[in-house]
């Protein structure tokens, strides 16, 4: 079971969180013309990386904040975590 450092609450067990997928996906702006390809990339196409992956988790049984977690998908190592509005350098 992963041990995730919620930037708001501190170290918490994985069972307090729910997974939210790739954090690098950006929703196209509202009211903007979007090509089929662009929209498909947003809705469906994911890289499913092996290795370092920036992903979203929500601390549902805690502060309810969505956070970003930089995790290695192969080893589960967690490198860093970020608040939703924090820029990932």
């Amino acid at each position, binding site marked *: *079971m*992963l*041990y995730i450092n919620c930037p708001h609450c501190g170290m918490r*067990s994985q069972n307090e969180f*729910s997974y*939210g997928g790739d954090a690098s996906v950006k*929703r*196209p702006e*509202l*009211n903007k013309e*979007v090509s089929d390809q662009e*929209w498909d990339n*947003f*809705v*469906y196409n994911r890289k499913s990386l092996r290795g370092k992956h920036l992903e*979203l988790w*929500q601390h*549902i049984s805690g502060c*309810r*904040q*969505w956070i970003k977690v930089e995790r290695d998908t192969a*080893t*589960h190592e*967690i490198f860093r975590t970020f608040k*939703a*509005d924090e820029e990932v350098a």
Partner: protein
Amino acid sequence: MTQAFRIENGGLINRDKKLSFKFNGKTYFGYEGDTLASALLANGVHLVGRSFKYHRPRGFFGAGVDEPYAVVQLYRNGETEPNIKATEQELFEGLEAKSVNCWPSVNFDIGAINNFLKIFLPAGFYYKTFMWPKSFWFRIYEPFIRKAAGLGVASTKHDKERYEHKYEYCDLLIAGSGPSGLAGAYAAAKNGAKVILAEDKPRFGGSLLTSDVNIGNQSGKDWAEGIIAELKTMPNVVVKNRSQIFGYYDHNMLVMSEKVSDHLPSTKKYHPNKRLWYIRAKEVLISSGSIERPIVFGNNDTPGVMLSSAAKEYLKVYGVLVGRKPLVFTNNDSGYETAIEFKKNGVDPVVLDSRKNAESEIIDEAKNLGINIKNSYVVVAAQGYKKVKSADIASISEDKKQLGKIENIQCDCICVSGFWTPTIHLASQSGNKTKFKEEIDAFVPGQSKQNEITLGAANGVFSLEETLKTSFTAGSELSKKLTKKDNEIAIPNVVEKKSSQHDKFWCVPLPKGKNYKRFLDFQNDVAVSDVEIALREGYRSIEHVKRYTTLGMATDQGKTSNLNGLQLVSEIENKVVPAVGHTTFRPPYTPVSIGAIVGREVGKHSKPTRKSPMHSWHEKNNAVFVDAGVWLRPRYYKRGNENLFEASKREAKNVRTNVGVCDVTTLGKIDIKGPDAAVLLNRVYTNAWLKLPVGKARYGVMLREDGIVMDDGTTTRISENHYHMTTTTAQAANVLSHLEYYLQLVWPELNVNVVSTTEQWAGAAIAGPKSRHLLQKLFPNSDVSNEGLPFMGYMEGDLFGVKARIFRISFSGELAYEVNVESDYGSFMWEKIMEVGGEFNIQPYGTEALSTLRIEMGHVAGSELDGRTIPFDNALEGLVSKKKDFIGKRSLQRSAFTAEDRQRIVGVVPLDKQTSIPEGSHLVKDDKAPLPNPKLGHISASCWSVEYDNPFSLAILKDGKNMIGQKLFAMSPLKNKVIPVEIVSSHYVDPKGERVRS
């Protein structure tokens, strides 16, 4: 009855407390501190079971967790538990156990014909034999296997025992209380670290209990006792015996099973049977020691053949002689230690050492005691069926290929030592890539993967002095990092006898003309010949060989068999062992009770139960409840002998004719506040929300980004910047997360807050033509007329002094209202509604009537919003704004979603107006068409229309728009029904929606 094999004195058992127990129906005696195995051996009982495949007689092979044979069915306090190792089960007064895997009895076993008739089940038996013919499986193979094999019987009774889960955090978790574990724990504890020390056996000390060593001028055992006693007094230390750490998971999470009560005749009041510990450790010290490995020879599974370390443990811990004429067969010095213990207890062992010559302090001691030692000698085969009677022995050439003349010597047990295998399971589970250590012919942990360190014998270090030194140092260093304290620890003096190099010899060749079975895996009956077959048939990867032969796949997970299997493969394949590699170690290290894994989450605790504030009223009024997610909701209120069908029909009918009340507390409620609340709603819902006036409600549909309907419900504008959203019961949590996602990540600029208020409000839906009359009486000071409170209107009211929210919304399609009060007033509200509603013939209605009402109105619910439908499919396209953008809108342009013959909701009526259509039935054109019959759609929901008094269903049907009036068939192969049906509009009752506005 005397215990014929118990020595006069010695051992760690309590001779003052005699215990009686039963094995296979016969009564025996043992002592407190015995295991079932030691007590049976004290009574000379060696035959405890039959092997899995050949049903060969089986005895004891080990003295602990590594035991592959002695698996019994245990009876305790009216309960039974299978798969118990006799070597681990502590004796208690009145214990009862039976052999498993033998039918009809352990002494006469029908399955053993397999052995005599040589209908051998060779490698790949399951693969090959049982593949064909398929029809034989259920009739012949399975019943046969079930009866003749298996490792016990699971109880079918409710388990009365309690199991607990515990969550713990520590600085240093230590697996194993041998010299390494004790030293590490002591050093870390002295630095103030929070330490948990776990030992799977009842006694702490590990190898120190049986080894002849001296630490700081005390015996190893006394030193261990002193350390444990001191650790127990320290507030920062938890020491746990009978506790097996069986799994090493991600981020240093380890799981430990503590046997709290298994050693007692019955569980103490308020105590659990077992406790499962989830431990998050900053650092882990794996000091799990090593397991002696066998040398493979003919008939090496005969009862009486056992590990030499086990024989020593039975003697030193339990005061039990496993034989009076022992033969020790060894390739290293450990066998001598066992022989010396026998000799000290007046028994004359014979030692066969495969080495030509070896010299060490231990061997000198054996020689000085006058022990008969034969070098370059091996056991070729054990003789005897149910017990070793003698052994065929022979000298062996230096290249270990040629046997000398076979001699037979009398013996009643053969104690084998093929050197030691480090217990690397936990390190391997943590992700550590193990490496092969040439000097010990075994794998040891490599580079640490998580925060774990493996020391002592588990790391392939068999010198006590070195183990203590490294472990004290590790304990100090690891704790220093965490506590910033650095207490000097004086490492004690160690006196141990030096051993000589072991012999890299593990398998005795077959003598000419003999075809003895030489077993590698004793529990699964995998012999050398089976592995040879597998390799001959082309299996190469060790993982494949394992699965094909079942080597190492039994409940002991190959603790004693793994390495010999690898040696064999490497020998035949002419590769070095590390090139063959080992199979993956997976948790659990030992079998864990299902009960312990489940913990307290049984029965009504298996999931939380949510009840509305009106629950007790429903109970008192004969409600029959149904699970709605984790909520309990009244399905119907039973009157007299009514069944579900009759009651729900009565309740629905009463709504259509008078007035009914339904508990809708379970609906999800989300409070939305902030200046941008309307903007959020406008983006979340498909329809327009910017112009909703205060005091008005609106129905809305929300999509996922892929265009699929996520949920529906009404949202009401309570005040300028305050909205009250309702969701379906099932989607409440998802919708909240959905809103939070967009507010926190996508549109953080919106100034809006959302919070769940589901439990803050109790809700009652009041529906039916007389509902307004009832409302007037409930709220005499409010104007609830059609003008004062029109359809989709909202107002606040005073319900006999209680502040209430009144929404004019309808799910039933009747004139209807929803009244909400703060939860604590829920039952007051409900009772008032029932009391005042009496004169209007009010009746409560449950979810079944609620479904009937919405189905015949064509209102969609979860069975239509099933994660596969878009607004059009549900006839909700009128709510999809063409002007504004919203979540999921772009997806609705996908060609599949705009297809002309897109599926759509329709109504379905059976032609005979009698036969109810099972939900899930497929709609087809031709009921006689060959399979697979092309499916046009499916029945999503069915009811008995109270309006027309005939069955009515909703369906999602291909090209549904153009199918009205068509005749199709509803087919349910599950219910074996074929029903001719007509397709009608989904709005079966009041298609113009006049009632809700009346």
